[in-house]
């Protein structure tokens, strides 16, 4: 299997969070992303800092996608095509 790029990992993570409809906790999220704990923590923190996901306390901490996160998923193919087009 080819190594995923950073943007692809972010997209995969956001898809999992989005599909869970705000019911996923960090441990099952880590399992589903196929990342090491260290890398998962890095990506998770980055997504929080960028405002793509947010944490909510409902019977324990759950992860939810933000409007910006949904926008990222909508624009993902545009971003990837742009990077390819300009060799960035």
């Amino acid at each position, binding site marked *: 299997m080819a190594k995923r790029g950073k*943007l692809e990992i972010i997209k995969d993570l956001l898809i999992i969070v989005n599909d869970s409809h705000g019911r996923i906790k960090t441990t099952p999220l880590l399992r589903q992303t196929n990342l090491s704990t260290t890398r998962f923590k890095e990506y998770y923190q980055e997504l929080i800092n*960028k405002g793509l996901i947010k944490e909510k306390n409902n019977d324990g901490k759950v992860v939810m996608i933000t409007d910006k996160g949904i*926008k990222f998923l909508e*624009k993902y193919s545009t*971003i990837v095509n*742009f*990077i390819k087009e*300009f*060799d*960035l």
Partner: protein
Amino acid sequence: MPIMTGRAMMGNIMVNGMMNEGLSLEIIYSFVIILASLMIYYGTKELYELSGHKGIKYFRQAFLYFALAYFFRSSIKFALRYFNVMAVFDIDPRSINSIIGQTTLFLYIYLSTMAIFYLLLSVKYKQWKNESVMFLQTLAVIVGIISVIYNNPLSHLVINLGLLVVVVGVVILSKSGKKNNLQIIYILLLLFWVLNVLDVMIPGFFRTFQLIIYLASSGIFMTMLYRVLRNTGGK
């Protein structure tokens, strides 16, 4: 008050007409380049804000710097016409105008060199270390200072052609030798950058080719804008 003959008046009208024509050309040229560059910068804002991608960041910065550089370029051109001189160095060195002229010249050279370096960084940032931004900033400042200190057309020609050769070499060798239209556009952009710098630094450099070079230069920026709009969904 001296009385003008009909022939002298006609001559005056023709000279003024040519001056106004040249000024209109400068205004349209600067407007097109600045507008295209700013449209590229703002057109890619959302993609950068969502992705935080370094390549997109440097690409955007290149066009922001191009917009600023062309603003200062047009300021220099207007100042030269206003003071009726051929080059910034011809402005009376004892006057405040000379300091303003040289500061504007420094900003133009620094910003346009940095624009090219950011374009280079956008395709090479993965291979280069983080410190390379600081190194390129320092190099651009040095090029700017040299341009202000030395009033020698040959030194400007050598520096800018040297930069052109290095940058074009890096662009050609980048991305594992992959050849595409983009490389050609980048190389043309670099070539017209050098021609624009030499036009400001060396009086009468363009001469009769000015209109052709302005059209070609604008065409390159419009091509970049078209490609950006096509790929950002702006079209």
